[in-house]
């Protein structure tokens, strides 16, 4: 709308080619044409600056393009690379302003309202936008004006950061040739027939009359020439999933050959995340196979990361453990992200391992003892004895002290005295711990009046029960096939050990479940 004071247009020229150059930076030094269709019927749809300097234009056939530029590198258009580059440009601009609009492939409108106090003048903001775009691998031009239409024209002419002053904007636009902008072929022909040469010529025509003769497209063209925005600003917000992809012209059959490709993809992805102040919490890699299928693997780093090296290592280890069945022809990596923490920890909190070190140690531990044996224990919400799971270790994110901490207190050593002897709960150092036997050890138990009197097994235990307390009866899951029911006893054996003895009430078998220690 007209009431938006300052708008920047960030534009990447020859966007399809720029997206491919972003995936293969070496292409920037060569004339590149993006082609569609299978040779020899392929046609050029876009060319980079070096190729255009050699005369390669959109619409040329493959053969014509090579004739004009023998060293031309041709690449098929990659929809994945363009989508990733489009997102990357939007995210780069989002790091400067929270209000950005996805106008078209390679064109982003940025609302500059209120940014002056943060970054300085329009020139400085324009340079910042260019830097952010370059950081994600795209060379952009920036135009700044009072409307999106004016800013888009400014992004096509003049210096790489072109600021149109409020007072001089109309005059500056008036002198711009119509051919600078892209128009539908019919409109271009009509403008030529009417003798219009510059945007000023078109803007000088009465808008109503243009609308009567050319319809809605004519009205839109008139607004564009006059630098007037009629459509509302449609803010873009970052998607919850972040993706990068790269198609390969060759087949990759070994992991060492695949790692550099993964590294390139992850470098681009992490560069985007850094701009958006996000870190990777989960990765999914999808390998396109030569057989036509896909091979997908998921990865959850122990801690959120944005370092490329450990992510590449973790991904390579995952693929090494679960290799694709055939050669790979494409790589797509999508990330689940979380916001980066502002500070690593509280000022008064004890130090914690650096995320990179922790991730590396956890990966090595997982390799050593298996993923099922490393993690943080989580007690399940169940009455079933010894029911727990292992969750990925996250470094103890959360509050330092909760109600539990206040309840238990921090005193750690209650010493005994006579009062403690009379009342064990008085001045106690803590709770008596259990050592579990996994699986519980099967034993033979002699009973007397239903109470255990002697415990023995084939592994050497043969002891008299000195004292026992119980039974404590519990059961659960009786509504499904995992039903369980048991009686538990605390027993002190004649060898001075204290056990938790359990009898399965379904099978009547006795087990040593745990030892008090």
């Amino acid at each position, binding site marked *: 709308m007209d009431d938006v004071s300052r708008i920047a247009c960030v534009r990447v020229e020859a966007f399809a080619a720029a997206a491919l150059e972003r995936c293969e930076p070496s292409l920037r030094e060569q004339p590149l044409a993006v082609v569609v269709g299978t040779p020899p019927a392929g046609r050029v749809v876009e060319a980079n600056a070096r190729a255009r300097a050699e005369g390669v234009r959109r619409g040329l056939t493959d053969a014509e393009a090579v004739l004009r530029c023998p060293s031309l590198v041709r690449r098929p258009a990659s929809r994945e690379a363009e989508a990733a580059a489009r997102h990357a440009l939007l995210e780069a601009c989002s790091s400067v302003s929270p209000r950005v609009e996805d106008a078209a492939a390679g064109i982003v409108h940025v609302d500059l309202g209120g940014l002056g106090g943060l970054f300085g003048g329009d020139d400085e903001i324009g340079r910042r936008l260019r830097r952010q775009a370059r950081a994600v691998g795209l060379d952009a031009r920036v135009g700044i004006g009072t409307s999106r239409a004016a800013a888009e024209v400014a992004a096509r002419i003049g210096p790489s950061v072109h600021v149109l002053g409020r007072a001089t904007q109309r005059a500056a636009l008036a002198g711009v040739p119509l051919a600078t902008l892209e128009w539908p072929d019919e409109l271009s022909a009509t403008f030529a027939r009417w003798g219009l040469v510059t945007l000023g010529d078109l803007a000088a025509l009465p808008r109503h009359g243009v609308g009567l003769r050319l319809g809605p497209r004519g009205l839109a063209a008139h607004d564009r020439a006059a630098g007037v925005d009629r459509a509302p600003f449609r803010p873009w917000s970052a998607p919850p999933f972040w993706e990068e992809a790269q198609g390969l012209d060759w087949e990759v059959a070994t992991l060492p050959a695949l790692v550099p490709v993964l590294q390139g993809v992850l470098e681009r992805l992490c560069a985007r995340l850094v701009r958006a102040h996000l870190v990777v919490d989960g990765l999914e890699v999808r390998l396109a196979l030569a057989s036509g299928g896909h091979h997908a693997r998921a990865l959850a780093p122990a801690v959120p990361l944005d370092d490329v090296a450990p992510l590449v290592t973790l991904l390579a280890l995952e693929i090494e453990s679960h290799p694709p069945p055939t050669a790979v022809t494409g790589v797509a990596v999508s990330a689940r992200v979380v916001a980066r923490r502002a500070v690593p920890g509280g000022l008064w909190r004890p130090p914690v391992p*650096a995320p990179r070190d922790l991730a590396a140690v956890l990966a090595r*531990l997982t390799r050593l003892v298996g993923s099922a044996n*490393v993690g*943080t*224990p989580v007690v399940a919400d169940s009455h079933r004895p010894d029911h727990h799971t292992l969750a990925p270790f996250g470094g*103890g994110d959360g509050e330092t002290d909760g109600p539990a901490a206040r309840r238990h207190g921090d005193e*750690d050593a209650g010493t*005994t005295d006579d009062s403690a002897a009379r009342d064990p709960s008085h001045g106690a150092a803590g709770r008596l711990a259990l050592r579990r036997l996994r699986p519980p050890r099967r034993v033979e138990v002699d009973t007397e009046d239903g109470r255990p009197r002697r415990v023995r097994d084939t592994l050497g235990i043969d002891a008299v029960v000195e*004292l026992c307390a119980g039974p404590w009866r519990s059961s659960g899951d009786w509504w499904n096939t995992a039903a369980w029911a048991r009686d538990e006893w605390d027993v002190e054996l004649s060898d001075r050990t204290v056990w938790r003895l359990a009898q399965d009430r379904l099978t009547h078998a006795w087990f040593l479940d745990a030892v008090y220690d």
Partner: protein
Amino acid sequence: MLVDRLLRQGAMTELVGPLSSGRTSVLTLCLRTITRRGALAALVDVDHAFDPASAAEAGVDLRRLLWVRSEGRRRDALRAVDLLARCPGFTLVALDVGESPPRLSLGAAFRLRQAARRSRIALLVVGSRRVIGGAATLSVQTRRERLAWIGPGLSCRRLGGMRTGLQVVRAQGAPASLGSRRLWWTT
């Protein structure tokens, strides 16, 4: 506090005692104190004997505890401790070697001690007998002194608690104030 006397940054402490002597309760007490301070602890469990439920009841903040189970493979457990001891940021790395552990070679024990010293990590080895010998800065023996059964005679109704005695058997540059000490544990 007892835990601060037992554990020292960059040093190895050994806690030995037979079953039902209270050594696991002392280990749990150390884990509770460390995690309640907001620090991270790691437990390498050779025999898969750690009980998360009783530890949580004892006040251990399980979110700050890394549990590594080696399923009886002592060599893997030692490697895991070696890895953790070289990761600065953990305040306590505990190794529960379980019952009848083999004695560590002198080289392996001093290698662990050196790693702990460089990372300033407190290393605690818990077992039924001493395994790290001279590499331990402090060795403490636990013994059961008393059981408290609640209820009369053979018809007692429940186990009320246990009293553990601690005795220093080796102290190399460690504070001697630990002396001998008694701890009560409740169920």
